[in-house]
């Protein structure tokens, strides 16, 4: 195991997931001395056993997260555990946010605005997709905002995709290839995907653009050091309280160490970032670091997943393909009031024709929890050949009261646990209801002999350290730079002021590309 730096370095990165590894790669590649501290264990490719059971070890947190509210965010399922973070079990569905997603407050008087627009982020989306590789067909996406063509051809469409695609056409809706950060051909030294549908267990061949495939190797090749099982418990500041000086961490041997750096990058996932900032309070920052606005921890959002299932007389080979799906529909995405008559607000998309395994939370058996005994056995025999699937990704509303706070309970290292409170407003629930009704109609039109859905479930966690123009009502500027401490950068989906109705990983990478470019150019002013 690489020894932790004992002298001050240029940047210490807390968390080795998508955002942290992206920061580490970009900074190390311009010659900065970088150390990545990861609370969880190291995973090697051989650990990524193809099994929905083994896959569960890639999720969860070292310390438990407490959840309250009517619509909890599903921290255990949505988070990552160990090197690579939640990127290790992402499904690689990488659509872009749309133009209207950045101006929700201005356009609709709800939720929040982003401090930047789509045009600000477009060059970084283009750059990231060239680096990480996205398969798709831009011209077929009727509503996607402008951008460079995808560097790889689309994911193959199986019988399952064709059947559901016909269902959409039958109700007058269009589908396009799902933009997937998965190789459909050899790409930058990575082999093409084998389409065996084990994305949830990590991708040991490097077909899916996870941290361990893209940015961690780049970071390490450029000299960054990676320190697993090293849990950061506090961000350190100087006497003035205006600068971060490094972090305090506990090693796996139980040793308490300090890693001092000119820049601290906090990339420990949406919930843990505010937890650490709250737990690092000082006399100058009595309510937590970077919290002079009182906004720290607030505006937690999660997508409402709308899983639709059906059985079709034709064989659908549902075990194969990409877990994220094959096709996309964003029919009503650009009008967040499209379903206002139903009391709904927001945008949603359909990810169509998932690879689906017999077991696992998103698997075939749990899709019909009412079945047991012989009825379940019979269903499993049929459904493993004939099931069709898709999932709606439904926008949440950003609400100040949905927030991370510190619990009075502490973990084994003495750090207070995070409590996440989340209760949806009526409009995202109504939008979910609308999406489910549409999904069932599509499946019937596709010829499903029966179609059903499972309950609304949380998918992705965003917010908590939201970016904004004003230091008075946000935690960071548009670069993730803390308003209160210019050498503290926050990275990841926690920066998102609103959730949009698309998967967050592509956008958090685009933000990381923009932030690191800014940081490298403005290094001296950032470190003061």
């Amino acid at each position, binding site marked *: 195991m690489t020894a932790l730096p004992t002298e001050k370095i240029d940047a210490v990165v807390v968390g080795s997931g998508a955002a942290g590894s992206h920061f580490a790669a970009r900074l190390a590649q311009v010659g900065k001395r970088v150390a990545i501290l990861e609370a969880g*264990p190291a995973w090697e*490719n*051989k*650990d*990524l*056993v*193809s*099994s*929905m*059971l*083994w896959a*569960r*070890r890639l*999720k*969860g947190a*070292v310390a*438990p997260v407490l*959840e309250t509210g009517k619509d*909890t965010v*599903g*921290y*255990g*399922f949505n988070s990552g*555990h160990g090197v690579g973070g939640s990127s290790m079990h992402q499904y690689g569905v990488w659509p872009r946010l749309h133009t209207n997603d950045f101006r929700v407050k201005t356009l609709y008087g709800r939720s929040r605005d982003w401090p930047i627009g789509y045009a600000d982020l477009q060059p970084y989306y283009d750059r990231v997709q060239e680096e990480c590789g996205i398969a798709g067909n831009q011209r077929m996406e009727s509503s996607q905002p402008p951008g460079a063509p995808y560097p790889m051809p689309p994911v193959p469409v199986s019988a399952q995709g064709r059947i559901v695609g016909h269902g959409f056409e039958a109700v007058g809706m269009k589908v396009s290839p799902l933009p997937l950060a998965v190789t459909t051909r050899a790409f930058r030294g990575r082999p093409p995907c*084998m389409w*065996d*549908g*084990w994305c949830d*267990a990590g*991708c*040991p061949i490097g077909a899916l653009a996870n941290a361990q495939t893209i940015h961690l190797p780049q970071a390490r090749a450029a000299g960054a050091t990676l320190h697993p099982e090293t849990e950061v418990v506090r961000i350190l500041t100087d006497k003035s309280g205006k600068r971060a000086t490094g972090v305090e961490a*506990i090693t*796996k*041997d*139980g*040793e*308490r160490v300090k890693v001092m750096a000119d820049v601290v990058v906090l990339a420990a996932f949406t919930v843990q970032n505010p937890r650490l900032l709250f737990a690092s309070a000082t006399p100058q920052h009595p309510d937590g670091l970077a919290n002079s606005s009182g906004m720290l921890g607030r505006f937690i959002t999660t997508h409402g997943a709308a899983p639709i299932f059906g059985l079709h007389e034709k064989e659908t080979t549902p*075990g*194969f393909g990409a877990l994220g799906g094959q096709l996309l529909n964003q029919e009503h995405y650009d009008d967040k009031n499209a379903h206002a008559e139903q009391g709904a607000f927001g945008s949603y998309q359909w990810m169509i024709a998932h690879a689906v395994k*017999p*077991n*696992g*939370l998103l*698997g075939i*058996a*749990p899709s019909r*929890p*009412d079945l*047991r*005994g*012989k009825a*379940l*056995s019979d269903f*499993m*025999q049929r459904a*493993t*050949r004939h099931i069709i699937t898709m999932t709606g990704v439904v926008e949440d509303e950003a609400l100040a009261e949905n927030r991370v706070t510190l619990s009075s309970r502490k973990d*084994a*290292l*003495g750090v207070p646990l995070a409590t996440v409170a989340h209760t949806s407003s009526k409009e995202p629930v109504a939008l979910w209801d609308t999406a489910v009704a549409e999904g069932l109609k599509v499946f019937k039109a596709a010829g499903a002999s029966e179609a059903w859905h499972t309950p609304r479930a949380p998918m992705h966690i965003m917010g908590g350290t939201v970016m904004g123009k004003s230091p008075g009502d946000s935690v960071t500027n548009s670069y993730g730079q803390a308003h209160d401490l210019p050498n503290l950068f926050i990275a990841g989906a926690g920066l998102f002021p609103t959730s949009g109705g698309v998967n967050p990983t592509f956008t958090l990478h685009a933000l990381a590309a923009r932030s690191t470019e800014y940081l490298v150019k403005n290094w001296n002013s950032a470190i003061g």
Partner: protein
Amino acid sequence: MPAHPRAHPTRRALLKAGGVGLLTFTLGGSVVTLSPAEAQAAGVPLGALTQEEADTLAALGERLVPGSREAGVVPFVDSQLAASPADCMLMIQYLGVDPPFTPFYREGLAALDGAAEARHKLPFAKLKDAPAEALIDALAEGKVEGWAGPPPSFFYFVVRNDACDVTYGTVKGFEALGVPYAAHIMPPSEWGEPS
């Protein structure tokens, strides 16, 4: 002396150190490695549950998912509960239940037996088909009179998923369903324990 020594090596670390691929059990004074099905057949001692709890779990699992008793639902659940929560492969680890998870199962199984005793003066495992199925109906609907455990329909959901995992989520389970397993990294044991 370290300031915060980590409690104990994780099961994963032990498995790595020993270079073994299966669950480890102590049998006849020596440590052996077995799959859940083998452990079930060998009558391996329990690590977290009592024999009464194991009997109830096996009976409930078999009624929910036929074949789960033989597939080893008891050694699967019991061995996972006996391990460090950080290494737990049960679905409960990401369903928002605070670890450790043994009390959840213990209280749920006791409540099920309590309900069976209240209705028929028998533990759940001894119930005949009709009363057992009627009690499971009530469990799934969350309407069990006098229930004193975790939310009954959630308990049903969790145990049903455990039984599905060990019955359908293994190489043998895929084979029985006629579904190709098509692994990148083949599970070195029936249910995916890493080597």
